[in-house]
């Protein structure tokens, strides 16, 4: 897993590569949280290069989403491949993350 994060106009843009699993989900979350500040209104996560995500990764996404919701911010996740899309569908994360149904 690799994640690159940059800030632009109070929005964090994160691009994730590889698999987000038990061994790296907390690093993924930390990378993003460490760049969050009070002015941040939105997190945009590009997952088009993410291979798959296990429940540890889903928990990280859920915690990020809770953080943004509680601070009147928003979070968008875009570019899920077939396996990731299905994982989101099974677990209710499509609705939770506001991802359009295919």
């Amino acid at each position, binding site marked *: 897993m690799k994640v690159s994060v940059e800030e632009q106009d109070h929005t964090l843009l994160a691009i994730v590569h590889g*698999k987000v*699993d*038990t*061994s790296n989900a907390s690093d993924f979350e930390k990378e993003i949280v460490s760049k969050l500040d009070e002015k941040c209104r939105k997190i945009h996560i590009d997952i088009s290069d993410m*291979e*798959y*995500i*296990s*429940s*540890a990764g*889903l*928990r990280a996404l*859920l*915690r990020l*989403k*809770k953080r943004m*919701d*509680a601070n009147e911010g928003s979070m968008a996740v875009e570019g899920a491949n*077939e*396996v990731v899309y299905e*994982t989101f569908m*099974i*677990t*209710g994360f499509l*609705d*939770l993350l506001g991802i359009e149904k295919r």
Partner: protein
Amino acid sequence: MKTIKIEADTKLLDEVLNWLEDALSPIKESEKTCQQIRIVVEEIFVNIANYAYGGLGGEVQITIDIQKNNGAVVIVFTDSGIPFDPLAYPEPDVKLCAMDRRVGGLGIYMVRKMMDSVSYEYRNWHNILQLIKINKF
């Protein structure tokens, strides 16, 4: 049939996943099936590592049998930890919004949804969990 016997420790997850790559090589063209199997093997291994031995440590054995006649992939986890039936674990409410969602129970739920069959038995001091995925070519 491929078998690995390994200490149930989350630090060894990569070792398990590397072994899994080799075990899945006969069906590596079925990318979606392989990804789902990687996810469920991680979920079950991590679960056993975190809970089966109550911090005392212990081993887990994983076997994978790819049946050539019907494409079924049969995965069996055996550990000698505390009796635990994952099928008896309550399912999470996947319709709740983010603020109301709890973070537990998701892994086992994913396993049940991604596999075609999940069965559990406790026999001779061992937890035996069998997963079957029908690989559609």
